[in-house]
Structures are given as C-alpha cells and as structure tokens.
C-alpha cells in the first residue's frame, strides 16, 4: 500500500532522467512569471503609504522587502520539507504537520525560553532545530518498526503525536506562566519580519541546494532499507541527512515565523495533480508553487481585514484543510480495495 501511494516514484527515476534537462519549459517560465508578479503585489501591499510618505522608501526596504524575501524562502522551505518527507516515506500524506515535527519545534522553542531568560534568535533556532530533529527521528523510527495496514494510518498517528507534543507544550506553558509564548508560536505570522530579524532564513537556500543534489538518492531511500542498500546507497546515512534537512528547514521557520500548517502537504500534492507522480522532477515546481502559495496566503492575510492583518497560519490552516480533504477524496476513487 505504501509503495502504491506514490506509484513508481523510484522505478521511473532513471527513465525520467532526460526530462530533468527540460525544466525550463514554457509553463514553468510562466509559473515563475506569475510568482514574480505575486512578489511585486506583496511588496506593494500594506497600510503604510510608501509613495506618499517621506520615509516611504526607507520603510519599503526595512519591512516590505524583508517580508517578501521571507515569504519566498519559507514557502520554498516548507514545501520542500514536505516533499522530502514524502519521498523517503513514500506516503503522500506526510509533512511536518502530519508527523508532529512542527509541534516538536514549538516544544524546543518553549524549552529554550524556559532555560534561558530572553534567549537570542540563534538559541531559539537551535532549540527548534534540535527538537524537530528528535521528533522526526522518533516518527521515522516508529514507521520503520511498524507494519501498516493503510497509508492513511501514518498521518493519523502523526497528528495524534503532534497533539501529544502540543499538550506537553501547553502544560509547560501553563505551569511556568509562558502561555503567551505557546500561543504566539502557534500562530505563524510574517508581521514582525523586518531587517535584522529574518536573515537566518537564508540558511534555507543551502537546504534547498542540498535537497536538489540529493533528490535522486532520497528517492531511492524511499524504496526501503533493503532495496536502497542493495543499490549501493547508505540508507541510514541518507535518512539522517533527510532528517537534518527537514529539521533545519522547519526549525528555522519555526523560530523566525512560527507554525505554518499543511504547506508541505498541499504544494507537492497539487504539483503532482497536474504534473504526475514523478516527485523528483517536480522539485523545481514544488519550490515555485510553494512560494506562490504562501505569498497568496500572506496577501490575503494582510488584506482581508484591512487595516489589521491576521496571522497567515490561520489562512493556511483553513485553506490547507480544505485542499487536504479534496486530495484525500480524489485519491480514494483510484485506490483499489485489497
């Protein structure tokens, strides 16, 4: 069943190799163009009148540009993290929200706040990364040990796991009067992004490059320990690497922005709806669509109740849930009962 979920992702990897050179198709260039337009709209959306005020352009570079860059980077990061998880588990419904990774990152953040009064961003980030790593490791270990009867069980367990971790966070928050931190972390938002507060997001560029380099091997790892080892791939090393990549991406985003649910799930799934199931050659698409999705969500979050703005995570959480359900219902028709 698990193998079935992403049909032939690995077997076809070699066959589709030639396709990779054809990334720059017309439709891909069009997609980049659309995303660029979204970026421009994002730059000029906001309450502050850039052209009218004297310090307009200064503000533009202090808040608007960093925000748009942050959006682009996080969009790519979360979408790629989801894709990597789906590659190595061969399960379409796995992503940082449905494995509890995001909640682990939140717990890490909270613990840093408890241990260090007024922690620096680097400290918070390290805490989040470390705990995302531990959490994702636990989940993968669990997946390897357990024989599953249905691919749908994986996200169910993951979501339960996430609920457990967040109940731990709630407990700690209440106990040490830190509920504010928990609540703030739970709602990811780009409101506070400005020069000096987002630069760590550039780490994501490195993560992205590494994912592109290792994409082939990660696909092989998804075929399981036995097959990948016999194909000459260091399975455990790869799983560790994938974990580290996911943890860094999720941890950095968690510390700087907060919780961004379902992004890693809906983007790869939408891409494979119109591009087919070859996850690896979908990579650049996932990046671009990830950027586009989060920019649209952010623009909505900034305009829906002007002059205020709502946290983008709520827009993502609501829309993501709808898209997730649509994807689930679509695939049930093609799944064979056996």
């Amino acid at each position, binding site marked *: 069943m698990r193998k079935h979920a992403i049909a032939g992702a690995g077997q076809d990897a070699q066959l589709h190799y030639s396709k990779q050179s054809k990334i720059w198709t017309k439709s891909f260039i069009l997609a980049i163009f659309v995303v660029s337009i979204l970026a421009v709209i994002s730059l000029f959306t906001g309450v502050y009148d850039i052209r009218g005020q004297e310090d307009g352009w200064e503000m533009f570079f202090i808040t608007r540009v960093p925000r748009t860059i942050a959006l682009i980077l996080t969009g790519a990061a979360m979408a790629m993290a989801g894709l990597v998880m789906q590659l190595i588990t061969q399960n379409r419904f796995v992503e940082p929200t449905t494995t509890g990774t995001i909640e682990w990152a939140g717990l890490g953040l909270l613990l840093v706040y408890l241990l260090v009064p007024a922690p620096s961003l680097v400290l918070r980030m390290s805490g989040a990364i470390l705990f995302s790593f531990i959490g994702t490791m636990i989940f993968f270990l669990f997946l390897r040990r357990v024989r599953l*009867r249905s691919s749908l069980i994986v996200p169910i367990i993951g979501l339960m796991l996430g609920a457990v971790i967040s109940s731990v966070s709630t407990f700690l928050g209440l106990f040490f009067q830190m509920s504010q931190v928990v609540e703030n972390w739970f709602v990811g938002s780009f409101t506070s992004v400005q020069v000096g507060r987002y630069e760590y997001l550039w780490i994501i560029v490195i993560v992205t490059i590494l994912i592109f380099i290792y994409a082939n091997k990660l696909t092989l790892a998804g075929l399981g320990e036995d097959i990948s080892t016999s194909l000459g791939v260091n399975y455990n090393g790869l799983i560790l690497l994938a974990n580290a990549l996911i943890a860094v991406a999720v941890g950095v985003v968690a510390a700087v922005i907060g919780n961004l649910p379902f992004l890693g799930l809906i983007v790869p799934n939408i891409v494979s709806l119109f591009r087919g199931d070859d996850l690896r050659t979908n990579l650049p698409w996932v990046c671009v669509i990830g950027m586009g999705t989060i920019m649209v969500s952010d623009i909505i979050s900034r305009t829906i109740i002007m002059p205020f703005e709502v946290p983008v995570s709520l827009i993502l959480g609501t829309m993501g849930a709808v898209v997730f359900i649509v994807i689930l219902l679509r695939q049930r028709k*093609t799944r*064979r*009962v056996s």
Partner: protein
Amino acid sequence: MIKLTEVQKQYTEKVKIGPLNIEIPKAGFTSLIGPNGAGKSTTLMMIGRLLSIDEGQIAVAHMDIGSSKSKDLAKIITILRQENHFVTRLSVRQLVGFGRFPYSDGRLTLEDEAIISKYIDFLDLTELENRYLDELSGGQRQRAYVAMVLCQETEYVLLDEPLNNLDIARSVQMMEHLRAAAKEFGRTIVTVMHDINFAAKYSDRICAMKDGQIAAYGTVEEIMDPEILTSIFETKIEVIEGPYGPIAIY
C-alpha cells in the same frame, strides 16, 4: 450449490472481473487456481459477501447474497481471509467460540461449548486452547482460524489460501483436515490455492481463472491437462501421472 450468474466487478477502467458464470455443486472440495491478479481472491470475497458486486447475481443454497439477511447467510456460508488481524487479545478457545455467534448472539450454551471443543479437538488444538493467539506460531494460528470458521457449522466454507505461512508438513496436515471436514461433516469447501499440485491432490473440482475470467472448470483430471495449464499460467507446464494422481511439472 453456489451459483454465479453474470457477475461483474469493475475496479478501474482496466481492471475488471467477470462476467462470471459458474455452478459449484454441494459437498466436496473445489479449488480456485490461477496466476496472480487473476481475480481468485476477489471472486471468493464476492461469494463470501465481503465485496459488493456491480452486476449479476450470486446465490448460495438458493439464497441471493445481495438481498438475504446477513444473519441468515451466516448460518449457511463462511469465509476466512488470508490475513487476519485482531486488536483484542484472544485465546484460541475464545476465538473459536466466536464462530458460534450466528447461533448464540454471544451467549454460549453448554451445547455451544461442546461444539467448540469438537472443532478444537478436530484441529489438534486441545493443548493450546487457552493460549493467546499471539503466543502461537503462524501454522498454529492458521489452524485456530480454520477451527473458528468450521465451528460456525455452515454448509459452505470459503478459504483464501489456507496454506499461507505453512511448511510442507503443516500444509499436508491442513489439507487432510479440510478434506476430512468435507467428508465427515459433508461441507462444501471452496479454497483459493497457490500450489497446483496440492489442489490436484485434494480437490474434487478445480476452477482455473485468468484475467478476471473463468478459464476452465472441471474435475481434477480435466483441468490437469498440459495445454490448459500452460495457457493459464503462460509457462510451459507438463503433467505426469504420479503415485497419488496427476502432477504438474514446470
């Protein structure tokens, strides 16, 4: 008698089973054979009402599977699937006892207990009857499941690959048991079999399936024919006469 009339089941545009037309007479042992994906298990599950059919009719002992009450059917036909997995921890005897549910609704009488004992003894599980299922070996567990469906005392018993997980000795034992059940208790047993020679040795009739269709149906002698087998399995198969009947060589 099990009677299938124009039975069809559509999975996707490409994968389709049927139309199937077949009559399996009362009493005796019938095996379904065929390559992987031929639709053997699906057919068995449709007869056992675990899968719905899209078109056609299935009648077991003149009762229509689709419209008869599930409770009444449970006293006439039973099916055991290949994989069984229970979340509750059950002892062998408790499991076999569930076979009485269609009659007792869960209230076991002394008579029920005697019947349960009978089938536990019949399958050599007496010593193990108070063990939990998860403490048994694969073969012992398989026997417990078979005891459960026999304990239901239905005229018709469907088994999906009952020899799964069994070594040669256990397989022979299981087949002896099943044949004895067919003979002693007059049951009609229909199994899906992987091994043609096992099917040939123990069955009264063989039904060969291929690509969702019934390719051949008849007595063991009729089906154990090199030409028929070769075309069904798309592999060169010869048949020689062995000490216990025809043997397929491939």
